[in-house]
């Protein structure tokens, strides 16, 4: 069974069709890339998968079960985590605390016990702290533990977003332009990190990315969107030679007639 299945998904924003009849499926433990020019609807797709807004038409299935009507926190609990195109860390909290927020749902303490029994929740908090520390080590930020998240370098902020997303114990991780604003060295490190995440956490990864070197190197499956529609899919070789894709990126004149 596919890990994630999207059927005839569409989204209208006040008359503008941002996404139109998109169907696709993502295999477990694979790396899939969504590519396409700006405004193609890639982030809109991410936003619908994570419940930020409901689709106008169609359906999203996680391991065969519909996600329609689920709020973002429920979807997070069911195993989908994400990072953001424009970094959205809790910039005034420390690096460590950012990851701890991601651990929120791994802790059983409910509101009532939290209010009534402060000392009894301590043990669980400790487990979460260990977990968070491990994740920071994994992405290479353990030294910056107590720094304010907003003070990290751009590349490190992106890594922290990944650590925070991993803390929710996802089965699918969505990365929205993880390499944006990174220099070539940082991008290479990121490529390794993404592969390491897939193998060590047994995750399914979906990424939106404009860096084609990274996309071609990582992705087993590529889906190309343009003007809200899926125009092509396949492996990197298929995509590089697909005239529709070249046209979308470079304009009609680029395709030799």
């Amino acid at each position, binding site marked *: 069974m596919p890990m994630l299945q999207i059927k005839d998904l569409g989204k209208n924003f006040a008359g503008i069709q941002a996404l139109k009849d998109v169907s696709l499926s993502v295999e477990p433990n694979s790396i899939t890339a969504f590519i396409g020019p700006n405004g193609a609807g890639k982030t809109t797709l991410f936003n619908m998968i*994570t419940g*930020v807004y409901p689709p106008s038409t169609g359906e999203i299935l996680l391991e065969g079960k519909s996600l329609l009507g689920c*709020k*973002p*926190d429920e979807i*997070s*609990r069911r195993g989908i*985590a*994400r990072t*953001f195109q424009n970094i*959205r860390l*809790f*910039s*005034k*909290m420390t690096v460590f*605390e950012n990851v*701890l*927020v*991601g*651990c*929120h*749902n791994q*802790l059983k*303490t409910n*509101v009532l016990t*939290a*209010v009534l029994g*402060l000392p009894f*929740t301590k043990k*669980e*908090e400790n487990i*979460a702290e260990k977990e968070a520390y491990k994740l920071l080590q994994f992405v290479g930020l353990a030294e910056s533990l107590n720094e304010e998240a907003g003070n990290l370098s751009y590349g490190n902020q992106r890594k922290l977003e990944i650590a*925070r*997303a991993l*803390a*929710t114990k996802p089965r699918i991780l969505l990365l929205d332009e993880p390499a944006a604003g990174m220099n070539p060295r940082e991008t290479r490190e990121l490529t390794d990190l993404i592969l390491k995440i897939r193998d060590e956490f047994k995750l399914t990864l979906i990424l939106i990315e404009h860096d084609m070197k990274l996309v071609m190197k990582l992705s087993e499956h590529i889906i190309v969107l343009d003007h809200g529609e899926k125009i092509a899919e396949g492996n990197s070789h298929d995509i590089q030679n697909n005239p529709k894709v070249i046209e979308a990126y470079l304009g009609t004149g680029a395709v030799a007639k």
Partner: protein
Amino acid sequence: MLENILRTLPQVLFDGITLGTVYAVIALGYTMVYGILKLINFAHGEIFMTGAFIGTAILLAFSSLGWIGTLPIIILVLVAMFLTAGVTGAIGVGIERIAYRPLRKAPKLIALISAIGISFLLQDLVRFTTEFANDGNFYLIGPELFKSNINVPLSKMASFLSDASFKTSFLFVLVTAVALMIILDVFVNKTKWGMAMRAVAQDRDTAALMGVNVNKTISLTFFIGSALGGATGVLFAVQYGTIDPYIGFILGLKAFTAAVLGGIGNIRGAVLGGLIIGVVEMFAAANLSTLTNHVIGAEYKDVFAFIILILVLLFKPEGLLGKALHEKV
């Protein structure tokens, strides 16, 4: 004149800090809700007042059961505070659910009007209930619990000081209020739900995407803020004896001022602001008439507190501990 001011300074500080801690705990309620919803919950002063009435009613019940005098008073007051905190906490959650949540996507001004409406509703509800139960009187006099005075013979230590004295209840109020603030600080900074509250305050949508249940977190914030407000109401009633349904208004305003002074949305700022306003107010009450050669009397003390507020905000608009917002261009 200066000599006179110095002489009474210890007493002013005792009184001011005690009053200040009361302001501080109420200010916490304002600042927490503002931090998470960017809403000034004007009903919070009325939550405090409701707490004072519920607590006094419980203490009067204890009194009629003959427990006061037989059981330790501190235990009885703590029990009354605990019960009251539970009830006002639940009222706070209910208010958010009914009056604010449906308006969450509306402009902030609309929710503010809703808060003012809730304020009047609570005032009248408490007044009605009290008149109904108390032979048509809308004020309530609680049982006298702490009769003894503590004298501090400062004049023996330093001849330029005069003796200070305060009721035992002052000490009780002070210790309890400080304990409440420490518990809150630990809760917000060290626990999972405290972390969730700060995350929601910073970025509600992202917090939701990280699996934080935003509605539950907001309810929790209202519960804690209102429980603290209600418990402080009980402290106030114990301290000052007579309460009426309108005590929440001016006290709420001052606590709100304290929150703004410290930097609204900042928990430690609220505590600092509360203490400053409490001390300034008591200082003004004690010395205003001496300082102005009897032109201005002690009843103008509130003006004094607000002048301080305006001065601070002129030079530091984000409040004492607030962080300045730098617009990115």
